[in-house]
């Protein structure tokens, strides 16, 4: 289980998180929605330790995220970045098997390559993609490679940062379905941040609405449409009028 308790983070005068509290039960898929610049990515990066919160507590399975062996902590996570964040200089298979080629999870090269190709197949890519460079792939293929890399070491917790941004609706649907299938199949805890309501309905068990640095509403995805929360209603229906200012 992941728990954020009264987390604050500011960049200069810009107060991004202002007391965010959220709980993500083990094995569930939580999707955080909210407008651009509301701190969704900051929350996610704070859990991973990529950003240090100013105050508050982040617990993973009851232990503070910033304590203990950092490598062992990070080995429990996989992450799909918004732009896939593939390493340009490495072929696709080495991107996927990056964690398996070095560090505590190191495997023999042949075995790591086999696992990479298997993971590429799992996300719908053929083995011949393995030796290509990321720059030779389309945006959708890069996202799939990023997804393959996120699941390569079979992590317990997977983060998805805007997984469908920049993709056409069909490819978005493919990625959403893959995320859902993989999370269920692996029994992983998933945390996704997105603006895309189609993704929310496809991926989420639970939804949280982040606005002005705090969670405005959270609950099961099935209750999202009847939440009665003005922030949720405005966001779901994409209205310009409501408590969320259209010009920010």
């Amino acid at each position, binding site marked *: 289980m992941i728990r954020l308790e009264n987390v604050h983070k500011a960049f200069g005068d810009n107060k991004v998180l202002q007391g965010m509290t959220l709980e993500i039960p083990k094995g569930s898929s939580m999707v955080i929605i909210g407008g651009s610049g509301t701190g969704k990515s900051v929350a996610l990066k704070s859990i991973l330790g*990529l950003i240090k919160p100013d105050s508050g507590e982040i617990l993973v399975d009851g232990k503070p995220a910033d304590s203990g062996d950092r490598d062992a902590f990070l080995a429990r996570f*996989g992450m799909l*970045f918004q732009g896939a*964040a593939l390493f340009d200089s490495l072929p696709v298979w080495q991107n996927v098997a*990056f*964690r398996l080629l070095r560090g505590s999870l190191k495997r023999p090269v042949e075995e790591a390559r086999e696992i990479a190709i298997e993971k590429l197949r799992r996300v719908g890519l053929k083995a011949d993609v393995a030796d290509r460079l990321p720059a030779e792939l389309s945006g959708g293929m890069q996202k799939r490679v990023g997804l393959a890399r996120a699941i390569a070491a079979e992590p317990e917790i997977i983060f998805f940062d805007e997984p469908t941004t920049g993709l056409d609706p069909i490819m978005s649907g493919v990625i959403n379905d893959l995320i859902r299938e993989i999370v269920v199949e692996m029994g992983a805890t998933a945390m996704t941040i997105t603006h895309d309501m189609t993704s929310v309905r496809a991926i989420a068990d639970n939804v949280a609405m982040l606005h002005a640095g705090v969670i405005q509403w959270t609950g099961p995805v099935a209750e999202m449409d009847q939440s009665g929360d003005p922030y949720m209603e405005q966001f779901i229906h994409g209205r310009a009028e409501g408590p969320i200012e259209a010009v920010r």
Partner: protein
Amino acid sequence: MSHPSPLSPLALLARLGQMVLGALGAVGRVAIFGLSTFSHMVRPPYYPREVLNALLQVGWLSLPVVGLTAIFTGGALALQIYAGGARFNAEAVVPQIVAIGMVRELGPVLVGLMIAARVTSSIAAEIATMKVTEQIDALVTLSTHPMKYLVAPRVLAALLTVPVLVGVGDIIGIMGGYVVATQNLGFNPAAYLKNTVDFLEARDIISSLVKGAAFGTIAATMGCYYGMQSGRGAQGVGRATKGSVEAAAVLILAANFVLTGVFFSL
């Protein structure tokens, strides 16, 4: 409360103080970055493949530009010394002055500046782009420390290869002077080489190689530092690249002054 006029002595003093504090802060950040780099260089895990790749990029692929710079500089130096020496009947000193000029000063400085132009800019742009596209964050989430994986191999490669490049540049520069002197200025080839070898001292060569190691370290460290500190977007990458080359070039020239003093003023 009224603020002093921007041109008042107090306001000017305050601005001067801010600039000095800003400069000291920058020096401190670079020093901490450099110390951290060396600390990561000597502690496992090591990434030998990254070091080999950096050796290739920094050393081997810089050879053409270093060679061309050195040969033209050596040739021009021979022509200048011959023309200048003729004013007081000292044309015969061409081999000695070309050798000492190339080995003590021009070889290390020009190679250092070429490395700043070629390697520092490339490292800064590459790392800055990785930062902007979240590849650095991705490295961290994959349990790989960016200082170990990106910075330490590049600085180590520059520390090892730039002295070699300086040595090669010194030899090619001297050969440039040799070709011009023997083909255009009527010097005897054997006498030219003998004068060159006889005149150079071990201290000249050691200073040249030490300068190479220092300049290589400065060039790679500045590239990595500015890359890691890069701002967002294309403008951030551009600023990081420009800043890294400016800082590396100025620091190389400053370090050259200091090292020349250390080797030849004592």
